[in-house]
């Protein structure tokens, strides 16, 4: 076979093979996102420590992770971590992907949580103190229930960004759709059809989700505007 022209036959031939990687793509995306959602809280917690030095270190560490290429971070975890003295363990491609991309995106998500927490009205904090609530009750019953829901559309956007970033994990052997397309291409020396299929699959999944999230955003904005906030405050105090 020769890959110098477009062939619908090859398109049909490659389609099921590329599609085999879809399950992996989705499971990596979801696992990574869950990891990032949880790890995001760690950053938010660390940034709330009231110590100038620690705050400075945490802020710049987050900045460092956010502004360096995720692909290098993946290589670091996949290739370099196993040879680290003492703490080194060999990780599978899947685990490296979840940890590497998870930590990368948790830095963004931590900032989103922070903005959510900061937008909770000061009266709510004061009320929680006035009611003599424990730290746990204050956070779990007053602050977080108001801080997190308004950030859901933003988190959704990052879910889509993450989804589009996951194909880079093919470089560390995670067998998602891009990996499948590249191996099909290498076997048949014909890359166009398989790569086009990858693009179409990504587009077919990410575009509708983006539209959905935009709708959610509009809905959330009307729900969490200032008038609605008064309603919500009532709801919280009734508990």
């Amino acid at each position: 076979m020769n890959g110098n022209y477009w062939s619908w036959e090859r398109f049909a031939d490659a389609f099921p093979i590329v599609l085999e990687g879809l399950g992996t793509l989705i499971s990596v995306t979801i696992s990574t996102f869950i990891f990032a959602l949880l790890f995001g809280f760690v950053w938010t917690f660390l940034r709330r420590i009231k110590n100038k030095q620690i705050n400075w270190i945490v802020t710049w560490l987050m900045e460092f992770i956010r502004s360096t290429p995720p692909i290098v971070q993946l290589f670091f975890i996949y290739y370099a971590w196993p040879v680290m003295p003492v703490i080194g363990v060999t990780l599978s491609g899947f685990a490296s992907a979840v940890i590497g991309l998870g930590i990368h995106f948790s830095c963004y998500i931590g900032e989103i949580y922070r903005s959510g927490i900061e937008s909770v009205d000061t009266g709510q904090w004061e009320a929680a103190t006035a009611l003599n609530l424990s730290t746990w009750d204050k956070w779990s019953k007053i602050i977080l229930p108001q801080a997190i829901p308004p950030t859901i559309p933003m988190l959704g956007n990052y879910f889509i960004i993450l989804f589009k970033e996951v194909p880079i994990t093919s470089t560390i052997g995670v067998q998602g759709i891009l990996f499948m397309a590249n191996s099909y291409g290498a076997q048949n020396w014909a890359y166009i059809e398989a790569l086009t299929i990858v693009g179409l699959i990504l587009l077919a999944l990410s575009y509708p989700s983006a539209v959905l999230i935009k709708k959610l955003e509009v809905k959330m904005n009307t729900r969490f505007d200032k008038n609605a906030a008064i309603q919500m405050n009532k709801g919280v105090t009734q508990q």
Partner: protein
Amino acid sequence: MNPITDIGGQLIPGLGITISILLASALFSYLMAFIAGLCRLSKNVFLRKFTGLYVEVFRGTSLIVQLFWFVYAIPILFGVNLGSNWSIGVIAIGLNYGAYLSEVVRSSILAVAPGQSEAATALNMTSFQKMRLVIFPQAVRMMLPEFANYTIQMLKGTALVSLISLNDVLYYGNILRSSNLSYAPLIYIVVLIIYFLLALPLILFSRKAEKIAKKGVAN
């Protein structure tokens, strides 16, 4: 082989590619952003739909896929020779981030208070004068922070060109790793530090840009 400086020395040859790709693709993407952003605001339906398609396709798929697609598919499908892999990298990254930035351009222009546009009309300005003298100076200020942020994203994106056999910093890092596996942690840390140092001016600029953005904008 001795630590950091030695590794750093071996990675420096890659800086040329990383920086030149970043600069070229940044300029290209800014150009695309303004063209596409303005086209999406145009009165011509065809132009609007066409740029809309461009923006959604590039934002809806991954940069890495686009990069491979440009290398393998464009020359065959359209019979166009895009030149070296360097220019393919620049075109792919530029078109990808141009699509994201066009949304920034579009929304910033729309965010300029409508009274400004009405005032310009009342002053009998032509639509070109209105754009150049009233809308743009305010809109561009609002765009700055996002442009800085996306330029950092672009820098991160340039690391992918090592996959289309361009000799950038990551490429030299990978070569070094394959010959000294036990130094891998140090090698990748140095690679990360190099990228961070390149990003640092952009990070500082983006913080400053947020202050600039708020100045001199009517609301």
